[in-house]
């Protein structure tokens, strides 16, 4: 039997739509080409829930940024991921930039965003002593927050699945046609799955998916952003997200105190031709650290523990493309660049309404459960709770990753929740994300993957595909 809705792409937007649709009596299928959800743009971004004032009026971005922002508290309460409204500062170095701050403040005030204030330089440095003495003013927005974007994806899909959504991973859509009875036949490798409606959330490849169905000829380009993570001992050096005054292409190089207490600096913003080009570059590193030091002079390359690059999916005109296409029942959700993460919960509701307009009947799912079981973050519990848990299961007492203080039991739980790779464990638990970057824990995580999934060590990968970690000792051909 065909599904009612097939969602192509398991980034944060696809996952949020899947979860939203799981409120209704529908057969929903999410198809993801990677071995885990959230593995593309949703994993490699700044993890910011924007304050709501950035995107201009008259754009979908502007409409959905603030609408999305307001939904994150509920989402967090239901789905248990790292999110905190730490606030942001957009800083100005001269009077021209102060005028820009005021323009943004007024844009925000028209949207009734609470708490927007322009601070003078003295106030800025009282609150954030690490900020440069050259900063003359800053726009403070308490509504901005930071989130662990990969955790959001895992939580959304876990909840969606618990409410009946089907998930296919390692599944690349290779063709879409319409059958005589009006349902879509979606080729996924050698298999074909059927669906009455399709939502295209394929990120960088959403243009290709749309063309497969004749549902749009827009083009999505990749704009790369390099980010650099700094050692956790700098925790507290900067407490709020710090932006320079933005340019039309990007919000500039930021200082981001991530939810987990690591400072992150970046991202760059440069178009690349190759949609898989996630290289970091010497030029990108120079650009990030040079620019960020203008705002926070104490930040140094020496504190870097890791770096990565992500690709924004950018459509012509820079706005989101969300809506029905010329093919009835096929909805595009494309060009979801910043503030796409912020907007995702609002996009999900918008798409739900669009599906209804296209003829999808929405009948409430009586067994819908909005929450997931809370994950244990052992290191953050009180000693009394730690004692109780470790007495129940000694694997809570055994350290798995010591940089991030993750117990073995948390790693095993992540494997049971679907992690099949080292990255899967890392993004679910933070094991391997700290300053030793897996030097100490990766072999332990590999042993756990091997024993829990009953697979040989040589089949364990970093992130699926050909990303193997170790090979057999005997001489011979690579297997």
């Amino acid at each position: 039997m065909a599904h009612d809705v097939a969602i192509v792409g398991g980034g944060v937007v696809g996952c949020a739509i899947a979860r939203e649709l799981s409120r209704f009596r529908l057969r929903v299928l999410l198809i993801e080409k990677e071995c885990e959800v959230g593995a593309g743009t949703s994993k490699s971004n700044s993890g910011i829930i924007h304050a709501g004032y950035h995107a201009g009026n008259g754009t979908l971005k502007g409409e959905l940024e603030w609408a999305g922002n307001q939904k994150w508290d509920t989402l967090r309460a239901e789905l248990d991921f790292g999110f905190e409204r730490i606030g942001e500062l957009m800083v100005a170095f001269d009077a021209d930039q102060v005028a820009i701050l005021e323009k943004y403040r007024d844009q925000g005030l028209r949207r009734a965003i609470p708490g927007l204030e322009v601070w003078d330089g003295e106030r800025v440095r009282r609150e954030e002593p690490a900020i440069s003495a050259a900063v003359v003013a800053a726009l403070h927005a308490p509504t901005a927050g930071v989130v662990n974007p990969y955790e959001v994806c895992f939580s959304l899909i876990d909840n969606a699945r618990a409410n009946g959504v089907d998930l296919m991973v390692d599944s690349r859509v290779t063709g879409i046609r319409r059958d005589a009875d009006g349902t879509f036949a979606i080729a996924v490798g050698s298999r074909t799955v059927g669906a009455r409606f399709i939502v295209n959330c394929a990120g960088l490849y959403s243009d290709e998916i749309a063309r497969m169905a004749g549902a749009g000829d827009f083009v999505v380009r990749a704009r790369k952003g390099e980010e650099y993570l700094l050692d956790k001992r700098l925790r507290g050096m900067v407490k709020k997200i710090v932006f320079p005054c933005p340019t039309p292409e990007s919000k500039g190089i930021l200082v981001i105190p991530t939810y987990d207490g690591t400072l992150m600096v970046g991202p760059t913003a440069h178009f690349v031709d190759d949609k898989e080009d996630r290289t970091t570059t010497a030029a990108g590193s120079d650009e990030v650290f040079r620019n960020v030091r203008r705002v926070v002079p104490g930040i140094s390359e020496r504190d870097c523990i890791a770096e990565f690059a992500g690709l924004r999916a950018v459509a012509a005109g820079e706005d989101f493309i969300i809506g029905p296409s010329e093919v009835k029942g096929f909805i595009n959700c494309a060009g979801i660049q910043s503030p796409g993460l912020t907007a995702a919960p609002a996009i999900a509701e918008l798409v739900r309404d669009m599906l209804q307009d296209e003829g999808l009947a929405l009948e409430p799912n009586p067994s819908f459960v909005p929450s997931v079981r809370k994950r244990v973050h052992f290191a953050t519990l009180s000693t009394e709770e730690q004692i109780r848990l470790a007495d129940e299961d000694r694997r809570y007492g055994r350290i798995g990753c010591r940089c991030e203080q993750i117990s073995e039991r948390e790693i095993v739980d992540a494997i049971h929740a679907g992690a099949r790779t080292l990255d899967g464990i890392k993004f679910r638990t933070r094991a391997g994300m700290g300053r030793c970057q897996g030097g100490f824990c990766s072999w332990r995580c590999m042993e756990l993957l091997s024993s829990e999934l009953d697979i040989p060590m040589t089949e364990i990968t970093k992130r699926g595909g050909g990303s193997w970690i170790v090979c057999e000792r005997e001489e011979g051909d690579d297997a």
Partner: protein
Amino acid sequence: MITDEIRHLARAYDVVISGGGPAGMAAAIGARSQGAEKILLIDREREAGGILWQCIHHGFGLHHFGEELTGPEYAQRYLEEVLENDIDVLTDTYVCDISPERQLKLMSGRHGIAVVDAKAVVLAMGARERTRGAIRIPGERPSGVLTAGLAQKFVNMMGYLPGRRVVILGSGDIGLIMARRLTLEGVEVKGVFEIMPHANGLNRNIVQCLHDYDIPLHLSTTVVDIHGRQRVEKVTVAPVDGALKPDLSRAWDIDCDTVLLSIGLIPENELSRKIDLRLDPVTSGPVVNSTMETSMNGVFACGNVVHIHDLVDFVSEESVLAGRNAGAYITGRRPPKDNIRLLPGDNVAYCVPHTLSSEREHIVYMRVRKPIEKCSVRFGEVLEKKLRYVFPAEMVNIKVKPQFLENFHGDALRVDVVQR
């Protein structure tokens, strides 16, 4: 925070040692020799001995035991001495925190969460390896980029290879040892690339691990790009100029499936930071006095957690001293206070300990910044020691006897290593 409600593991201890590697084991034995009765050695692995178990090559023990041992043999000798000395060894346990009253919070696969009280604590957590992020190697992020020590674990402890065609970045000792080890396993080692104009490992390892196996060492050359979406496919290397800037016009590609990093060690001081010990920005380890006591009363430190050693024999030597002083501390015998600060001067990166007493004999460990031949180590005007050569990769250790210090009346002594 550690509270009183928590049940105790066993009882209070005289000396508790965090880390059961070579430093911790030697400290335990040192503490026993000075009359400490209840001693607890804690290690996070299932067996004490630390990194020695995976160092199956020989070259350990020449200074300390007067014979050449493998890492496991060296560990075994110490471990037997620890057990003969009736020292409690608690493995599968991690020290999470230490309160100002020296109560330790433990996370244990055997005992769950527990606390123990200690009259003295010795920190012996060792070091970790620097990673790709620390030097921001540009390129893609495939699997197959790993530290040499992790590769050593895979090969020697788990029986797997990290890859079949390997490039080694950095000429630290672990990388050199792994170049030979992997060659013996039939792995093709394409070369060792070192950004500095001199090698970072011991000369004997350059000869025995590279020269003897015809593995090329490319000095003043570094990896400037890593290629491969899933697994490493090749790297681009390029020579660097005097300012360490790569000359990309002279870059070349090397096919490989693995990049091993041997780019240095960093003392593992999470716990030291948590309890606010004073740290030396150069060593990244705690500031210690001549008894190896840190800025926190009754908390001592030794081995790689203080500064990176080249030879385990020197770790043992330093750690026995730390253990002895921890033992003396709990019996109330406190040596005279240090009265001289050491100031690293010309071509001296750091000195350990950071202070000396003019009434005792000391061994001062130091590292130079650049190689010099025919040189002298000078402690102000009071002591000059001639050396044939100094080399950043080889720690310099100088015995300082009280007779040299008795006529010195200042409070700070500058240490220089200069050409003769």
